[in-house]
């Protein structure tokens, strides 16, 4: 379908900052609280109230700018005027022509650099719920508004139109989210709306042709939706152009269930926001000392974190190549410290990486809160053969659910005891006797057939045996 066409994609990402309070008032910045319990005269836009800027929010915005290699500049705030009940004062305070961060870049894991045009501060709006049969705007009888989110600090990160396909756009969103999490600026939760992505998409006949007319797609609630929406939108535009029609500049809404984009508004209906300088706020002018202090608090970025794991895995390219996905997973989820700590305590890196990427990652939030000492103790028991892989995973499940604990105590409570040597020897002997052909071939050097016996032993012991101990016993029998 896209044969002979080239995509041009730019992304605008809004992220909510991890502050205690809102951008211009002391109300709590807390997702999921009871409606309208975190509100005050400032964020309700009551007459006579005045905004005062949150220092922590400025510093997190600077941290994002630093992580994205931006120039951090003196900046000002404007009022963006529009009438919509998602904000009570009929304007949103946003940075306009003098944003705090400009001209940066983000490097994708494959080395491709995406230019960042700006990353500016603004306040979030309240949450509207459309009441009525459909739950959507069309067909709603009225709407309900909760202002808890009104005034929550946001940073909007605008990329240059440097992305060329859906996969690259997904890689950008994934890497940006990992950077936002690593810098401590945001929790990056797309499902809770703390990271929201809009995509500008256009198509052209050749990579050197001028850009085509673009459409902006909103309502992308996951990295997967982002990829699907871009692919759908590119095909829609190509179909139009190949039929001799023109693409109209529009804002479009992604419908995840229907798998298509729909017109929200055309360029003619574009808003006239009458931006003007916010008279109640003064400029923010970070001096070099302040910028340096913020840069000092910045932890390791995802690229550095991946490099750290790769180094631990060692120089063998086989060891690294086969585990690139595991490395990416633990870094994206912010779980790489678990691997590093376990490795430092003597747990084999490959084991620590596998348990973290495959098991701990299934509940990343719990894993980030997990007591490091308990995790290291568990992996040490598994590495020593006191617990089988299956047993170790079961104990890990309990640790994650409880946030910590003593893995040895949990293992005993579950009745996990290392199999006695005698009992293991007997079970392996039974497995060997049951598979005479496989045994003959294994004895002749077909090492991979060890799996046949390991499988039998595991089945006989319901996964309680230690796979490595079984192989050791097989090798002893083979002589």
């Amino acid at each position, binding site marked *: 379908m896209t044969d002979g066409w080239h995509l041009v994609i730019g992304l605008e990402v809004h992220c909510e900052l991890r*502050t*205690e*309070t809102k951008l211009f*008032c*002391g*109300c*709590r910045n807390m997702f999921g609280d*009871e*409606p*309208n*319990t*975190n*509100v*005050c*005269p400032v*964020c*309700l836009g009551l007459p006579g109230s005045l905004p*005062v*800027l*949150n*220092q*922590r*929010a*400025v510093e997190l915005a600077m941290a994002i700018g630093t992580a994205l290699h931006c120039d951090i500049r*003196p900046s*000002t705030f404007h009022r963006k*005027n*529009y*009438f*919509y*009940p998602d904000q009570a004062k009929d304007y949103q305070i946003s940075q306009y022509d003098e944003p705090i961060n400009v001209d940066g870049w983000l490097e994708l894991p494959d080395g491709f650099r995406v230019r960042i045009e700006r990353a500016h501060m603004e306040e979030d*709006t309240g949450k*509207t*719920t*459309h*009441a*009525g049969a459909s739950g959507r*705007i069309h067909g*709603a*009888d*009225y*709407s*309900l*508004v*909760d*202002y808890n989110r009104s005034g929550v600090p946001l940073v909007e990160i605008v990329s240059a139109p440097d992305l060329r396909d859906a996969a690259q756009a997904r890689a950008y969103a994934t890497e940006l989210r990992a950077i936002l999490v690593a810098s401590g600026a945001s929790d990056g939760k797309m499902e809770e709306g703390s990271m929201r992505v809009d995509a500008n998409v256009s198509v052209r006949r050749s990579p050197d042709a001028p850009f085509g007319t673009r459409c902006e797609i*909103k309502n992308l609630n996951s990295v997967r939706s982002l990829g699907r929406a871009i692919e759908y939108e590119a095909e829609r535009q190509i179909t139009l152009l190949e039929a001799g029609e023109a693409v109209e500049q529009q804002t479009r*809404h992604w419908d995840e269930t229907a798998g298509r984009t729909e017109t*929200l*508004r055309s360029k003619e209906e574009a808003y*006239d*926001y*009458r931006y003007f*300088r916010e*008279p109640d*706020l*003064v*400029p*923010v*002018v970070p001096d070099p000392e302040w910028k340096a202090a913020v840069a000092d608090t910045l932890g390791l970025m995802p690229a550095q974190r991946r490099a750290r794991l790769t180094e631990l895995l060692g120089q063998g390219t086989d060891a690294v190549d086969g585990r690139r996905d595991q490395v990416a997973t633990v870094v994206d989820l912010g779980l790489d410290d678990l691997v590093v700590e376990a490795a430092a305590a003597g747990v084999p890196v490959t084991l620590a990486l596998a348990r973290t990427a495959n098991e701990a990652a299934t509940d990343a939030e719990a894993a980030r809160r997990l007591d490091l000492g308990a995790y290291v103790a568990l992996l040490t028991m598994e590495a020593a053969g006191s617990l089988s892989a299956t047993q170790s995973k079961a104990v890990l499940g309990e640790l994650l659910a409880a946030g910590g604990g003593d893995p040895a105590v949990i293992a005993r409570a579950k009745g996990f005891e290392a199999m006695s040597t005698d009992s293991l020897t007997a079970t392996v002997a039974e497995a060997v006797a049951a598979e005479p052909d496989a045994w003959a071939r294994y004895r002749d050097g077909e090492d991979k057939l060890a799996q046949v016996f390991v499988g039998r032993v595991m089945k006989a012991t319901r996964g309680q045996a230690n796979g490595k101990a079984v192989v050791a016993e097989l090798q002893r029998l083979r002589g």
Partner: protein
Amino acid sequence: MTDGPARITRDEVAHVARLARLHLTDAELELFTGQLAVILDHAADVATLDLEGVAPTAHAMAVTNVLRSDTPRPGLDRDEVLAAAPDVEDHRFRVPKLLGEAP
């Protein structure tokens, strides 16, 4: 005062009034077009000055970095807040149905 072309047209005033959701009568439009033109003329006087090398003023006070610490402060009582709303449902402000999504 300058004598050049009108600083602002009646149509522009009508447009701005519509954006601000103000309903002006014909007489009011006439009146405000004249008044706004005088204000714009006054601002235009500044343009006749030699401002080479003068940095734009960001704010009437030469102050920067007015910040507060990220410390929560109690807000308003919800019942009190919602008592001031024209209509309420489920502890939320109930508003007429919206035409179109947020800008």
